[in-house]
């Protein structure tokens, strides 16, 4: 049984299997920011703790101050990431006061100068004993069949602090058990100890009070509201922080005992926030993911998609062997044969294109789900070996790669410490859920003022200071009006709200969260808006809200036209990379939109072959019809994929790739934070890690790429990629760097926070597995890197082999001076503009192949403003005809009072009647104009 009094360091580091995390000590790992000595806090309080003199910052709660001083006070309701409520009474200690020493809840009492605090007196012991005995009065003690058994704070603290035996002989309280409170979470009210962690999480952290207490006395129970299940995207967190087995997760229930699990610490790559997770597995299957409290990133929270999408990896719909199309059918072949076929096809394509079109000969689409190392090697294969620059990790649903690479970046911590946050993006709760939590927390605490620019409401709208609802196509014009009093104000923008927004935008610290407010608006317009803000607001910084897995790492590794690894432009980096790689593309290539348009239109400049890296343009590219025509027209199609799908169905060669948790390396989040992803499982069948596929394919084409390990690949990145200069493999693996390191490194020494302690009561299930879980099995994790240089050897690039000599290292990209924002024609009185947002649970691969999540995908309706509905003479639930330039569909409508007039809203890649919104978007136009007609 775990000793709840002991906090341990984090999960055993990935890449060093068997290394036991050592507790405490080693302050040498803690360095300071920019070398500045940390000054003592201004207000320090000195008090006595069990006879010792202890200091703590003023305002700190006693329980936290004692913990830092090495005295663990038992607790249930207290959670370091939520406000105290002081209800479980487990943390009672004796505090001296005017009326002598009294029992006080240490989670609710601030440290006070001169106070005498006793945590181990007989009176305290008796109170703790009593509380534990009371808690067990109605607790069913069904530990042998409880998921929490073995990692249960109630079990552990009863052992450490409780009476050995209960004196309770009566009948316990009974409830029906368990009851589902959502599709994902079940509630066992008999086990509940009413600590209110779950209800507080829902109300305070997620901002959705969908669960609350009902009843009173010992019949106090957590309940949902009638007919309103606990549908929060963050419901899994309540399961993780529940200090007993009252809340259990449907996908995990009864699947394991903690002592049968082993784990590695990794980074979730379901979206681009980069939440730190403990990946726990048994028998080469992921059993569950638990959030790790990474201070700069996720604070321990995960979204349900990130938490449960591991079902995809475990699924039986996996590609396990290489396939080659023979006589029109895909046939399983050896890796050698498949690679040879792919190499031959790509070489032939290059030959067809000839030298003149070499930079556009082969199109490489996708790459956002690769590790940084794989993205780098695929970039090197495409740009250095094949010589093509038509590489794009995005599907025209993001932002131009060179804009993203050039944006002055903010971290998440800087966002929540800003004065004003301008959100120009889709609904963050749907796209980057935990980033949303961080922003929501700051906005609700009044720490930041949020200005929202979007055609439709989002989950941040109720907490925003100002929401500017604009018509798709107007984003750049609204941005100009925001920073320039003289600029014309687009139709429909409320002048009062704009005035307020202008005031807030004038604050000293402004951070812009920049994504795509609607997919049905050309990314060039958003880029134009970003440049307008940069020019007008000195010191403004950005968090690019691109959502897909490692899309930021892919862009940083050069997976966009005109880019090279390390945020370098093609022209600026030409000499440097030519020396490092042998060659670079002769000119800028095509982006995804241009590639697909050229293929679909049979343009003479089209790519002669297409390599699709774990992407699905049919789902993700805004114009589904165009994507379909393009894939059908591809002369030679190579699919690198983990699961079957429409791209694999059309491919000439299929190369099976390892999925998340099956490969090691690094990933990069929205901040540019590089953190480790760990391998926990052996890939199924013959699937290989993507980096290895790139190396072997290059070899079959006739070029040896040097790296023979992920570690060596990173070393090469560190040597040649300017933005990653100095971030050595050793630094990434160092203790204290678990939360990742933001690139490019600042001028001073890299920030190396002291190792975060894991509070086993705050985040149960991680520390216990660490202590008692199965030992890591040999051969699963990445082999240890060759003896790393000492941590202080972070001095950039000394004596590296492939480092170009005699060529100046190119500079990191600056923002482009301007962008080619498309012209948006004015609309007429009969036309509506379409806005398309995203939903967390969509028809994409991660959700569809996770059974628990797939059933959460909802059918949607076309949302229309009340005025427009009146004009049409229809009401919510009625059907109307929606006509675009190319198609016409009949859909159900719903009313959305927060939509501007003449704007209709749909969601991307979810059922919209019998189709999805993908059929409505025409990739050739910057906005989507539609007409609404009543059905005759």
């Amino acid at each position, binding site marked *: 049984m775990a000793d709840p009094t002991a906090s341990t360091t984090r999960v055993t580091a990935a890449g060093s299997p068997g290394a036991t995390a050592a507790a405490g000590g080693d302050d040498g790992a803690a360095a300071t920011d920019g070398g500045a000595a940390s000054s003592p806090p201004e207000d320090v309080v000195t008090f006595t703790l069990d006879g010792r003199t202890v200091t703590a910052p003023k305002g700190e709660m006693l329980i936290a101050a004692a913990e830092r001083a090495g005295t663990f006070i038992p607790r249930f309701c207290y959670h370091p990431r939520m406000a105290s409520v002081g209800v479980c009474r487990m943390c009672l200690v004796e505090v001296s006061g005017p009326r002598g020493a009294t029992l006080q809840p240490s989670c609710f009492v601030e440290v006070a100068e001169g106070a005498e605090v006793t945590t181990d007196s007989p009176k305290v012991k008796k109170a703790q004993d009593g509380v534990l005995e009371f808690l067990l009065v109605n607790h069913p003690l069904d530990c042998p069949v409880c998921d929490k058994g073995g990692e249960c704070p109630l079990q552990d603290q009863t052992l450490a602090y409780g009476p050995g035996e209960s*004196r309770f002989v009566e009948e316990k309280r009974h409830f029906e058990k368990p009851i589902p409170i959502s599709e994902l979470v079940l509630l066992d009210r008999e086990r509940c100890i009413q600590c209110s962690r779950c209800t507080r999480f829902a109300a305070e952290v997620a901002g959705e009070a969908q669960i609350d207490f009902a009843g009173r006395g010992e019949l106090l129970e957590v309940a949902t509201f009638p007919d309103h299940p606990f549908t929060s995207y963050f419901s899994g967190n309540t399961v993780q922080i529940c200090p007993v087995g009252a809340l259990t997760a449907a996908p995990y229930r009864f699947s394991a005992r903690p002592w049968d699990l082993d784990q590695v610490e990794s980074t979730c790559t379901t979206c681009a926030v980069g939440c730190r997770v403990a990946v726990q597995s048994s028998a080469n299957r992921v059993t569950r993911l638990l959030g790790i409290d990474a201070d700069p990133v996720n604070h321990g929270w995960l979204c349900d998609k990130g938490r449960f999408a591991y079902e995809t990896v475990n699924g039986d719909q996996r590609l396990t062997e290489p396939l080659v199309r023979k006589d029109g059918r895909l046939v399983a072949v050896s890796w050698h044969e498949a690679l040879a076929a792919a190499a031959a096809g790509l070489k032939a394509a290059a030959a067809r294109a000839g030298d003149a079109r070499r930079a556009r000969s082969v199109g490489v689409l996708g790459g956002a789900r690769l590790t940084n190392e794989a993205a780098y090697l695929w970039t090197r294969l495409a740009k250095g070996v094949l010589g093509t620059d038509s590489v794009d990790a995005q599907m025209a649903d993001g932002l131009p790669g060179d804009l993203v690479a050039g944006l002055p970046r903010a971290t998440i911590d800087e966002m929540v410490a800003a004065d004003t946050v301008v959100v120009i993006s889709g609904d963050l709760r749907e796209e980057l859920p935990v980033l949303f939590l961080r922003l929501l927390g700051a906005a609700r605490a009044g720490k930041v003022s949020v200005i929202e620019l979007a055609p439709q409401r989002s989950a941040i709208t109720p907490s925003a200071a100002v929401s500017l609802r604009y018509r798709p196509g107007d984003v750049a014009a609204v941005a100009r009006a925001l920073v320039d009093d003289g600029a014309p104000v687009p139709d429909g923008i409320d002048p009062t709200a704009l005035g307020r927004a202008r005031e807030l935008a004038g604050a000293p610290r402004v951070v812009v969260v920049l994504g795509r407010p609607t997919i049905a608006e050309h990314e060039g317009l958003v880029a134009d808006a970003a440049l307008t803000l940069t020019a007008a607001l000195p010191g403004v910084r950005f968090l690019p809200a691109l959502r897909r897995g490692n899309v930021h790492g892919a862009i940083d590794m050069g997976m966009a036209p005109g880019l090279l690894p390390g945020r370098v432009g093609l022209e600026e980096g030409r000499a440097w990379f030519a020396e490092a790689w042998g060659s670079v593309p002769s000119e800028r290539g095509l982006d995804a939109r241009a590639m697909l348009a050229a293929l679909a239109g049979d343009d003479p400049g089209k790519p002669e072959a297409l390599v699709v890296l774990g992407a699905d343009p049919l789902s993700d590219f805004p114009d589904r019809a165009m994507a379909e025509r393009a894939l059908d027209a591809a002369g030679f199609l190579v699919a690198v994929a983990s699961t079957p799908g429409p791209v694999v169905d059309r491919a000439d060669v299929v190369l099976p790739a390892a999925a998340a948790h099956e490969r090691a390396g690094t990933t990069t989040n929205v901040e540019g934070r590089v953190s480790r992803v760990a391998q926990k499982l052996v890939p199924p069948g013959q699937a290989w890690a993507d980096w290895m596929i790139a190396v072997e394919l290059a070899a079959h084409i006739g070029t040896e790429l040097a790296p023979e390990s992920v570690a060596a690949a990173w070393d090469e990145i560190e040597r040649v990629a300017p933005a990653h200069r100095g971030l050595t493999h050793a630094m990434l693996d160092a203790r204290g760097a678990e939360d990742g390191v933001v690139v490019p490194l600042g001028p001073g020494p890299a920030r190396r926070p002291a190792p975060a302690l894991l509070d086993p009561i705050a985040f149960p299930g991680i520390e216990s597995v660490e202590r008692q879980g199965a030992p890591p099995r040999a051969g699963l994790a990445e082999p240890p890197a060759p003896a790393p240089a000492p941590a202080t050897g972070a001095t950039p690039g000394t004596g590296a082999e492939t480092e170009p000599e005699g060529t100046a290292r190119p500079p990191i990209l600056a923002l482009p001076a301007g962008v080619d924002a498309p012209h948006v024609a004015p609309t007429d009185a009969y036309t509506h503009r379409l806005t398309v947002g995203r939903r967390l649970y969509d028809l994409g691969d991660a959700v569809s192949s996770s059974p628990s999540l797939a059933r959460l995908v909802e059918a949607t309706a076309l949302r229309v403003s009340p005025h427009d509905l009146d004009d049409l003479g229809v009401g919510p639930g009625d059907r109307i005809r929606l006509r675009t330039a190319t198609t016409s569909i009949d859909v159900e409508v719903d009313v959305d009072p927060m939509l501007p007039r003449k704007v209709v809203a749909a969601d991307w890649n979810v059922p919209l009647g019998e189709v999805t919104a993908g059929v409505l978007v025409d990739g050739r136009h910057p906005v989507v104009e539609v007409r609404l007609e009543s059905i005759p």
Partner: protein
Amino acid sequence: MAITEAPKIVTARMGHPDSHTLERYLATGGYEGLRKALTMTPEAVAAEVDAASLLGRGGAGFPAGRKWSMLRKNPVSYLVVNGDESEPATFKDHLLVERDPHQLIEGVLIAAYALQVSQAFIYLRGEFALGLERVQAALNDAYDHGAVGEDIFGSGFSIDLVVHPGAGAYICGEETALIESLEGKRGFPRIKPPFFPAAIGLYGEPTVVNNVETMSNLPWIMLHGGAAFAALGEGKSTGTRLFALAGHVRHPGVFEIEMVKTTFADLIFAPVLGGGIPGDRQLKAFIPGGVSAPWFGPEQVDLPLGQDEVAGAGSMLGSGSVVVMDEDTCAVRAAWRITRFFARESCGQCTPCREGSGWLERIMARIESGHGREEDLDLLLDACDNIAPGLTWPPQQTTICVLGPSIPSSIGSAIKMFRDEFLVHIKEGGCPFG
């Protein structure tokens, strides 16, 4: 000791069947205290109440004037009147609310003027159907009369008064739970410190919370002066006080009695008051101040009805409820019924009270039904000790509010005074009283 001829301060009008109407109120000096107060400075009004040494009538017995003067250093935002009288056998506010609502309203207005608040709330127990109707009707009449609202009686002082019904939870009589409830939340008591209403009260603002009876005394004090009030009673316990007499007496009811001058024996046995125990049975025990209070036996029956006097003997005057138990009363059953009340009314927030109350209730029920064990007596006391460490009076507590440490009062008293009765239950396997 004797029954004094002290004036009736809060029950003077009760003899009239229309005592709740504005007409009767005005005909009997109604709103004169308020008119007088409005001619004085707020400080002078507060000083008058301070001079009366009016102890709060809600249970804690804190001097109202002192409460105000502490607050008047900082501006108070709200005045809240606690009319959530829900304890078993406590029904004195019930009478004031139903029979003299204008007197309550006038008292609230005087207090509001003294505190210079412009918004006050009367929180009434939801089950007071008639009381709610009458207070609301009286409030409407008072608005029409110009006593409430803008520029009352042309004084320039404006005040709005809102009547808010509770939803049936005893715990909302605890002032911070009442405030939560008033804010529209569950009635969970807040942690003090820091949530003393005076500092962080309703909507986070400094708030005064006073009891219905306390407020109802103010019109008389304004008319007759604080000194006249202080001349009644003795020591700290000044004026008259309402006592709700219940249990085994011939004339249960509410009696207004001058404090200290009268004894429990007078209250229970005097023909004009309780009239003695029916059937001339012997007094077994009585609860001097509501079911939260430790019990007294016949040997304490001559104690005067004074706050310090009762406290000195190890209990409290509390809510002004006196419950009489005659010799045929089963002490185990009585203590069990009280425990059951607390178990059902615990808000469920704190572990010791939520789980302890239910556990204690189960043990008491087991003993009463003849399934007790001798070791249960120590167990009861030890479990009580885990809610109220030391089982001292006044109690210490491991809980947020005082509901928890109220539970041990009756159990501890019953065991201390009638241990043999428990043992009979256990040995004979049933209740000897049938």
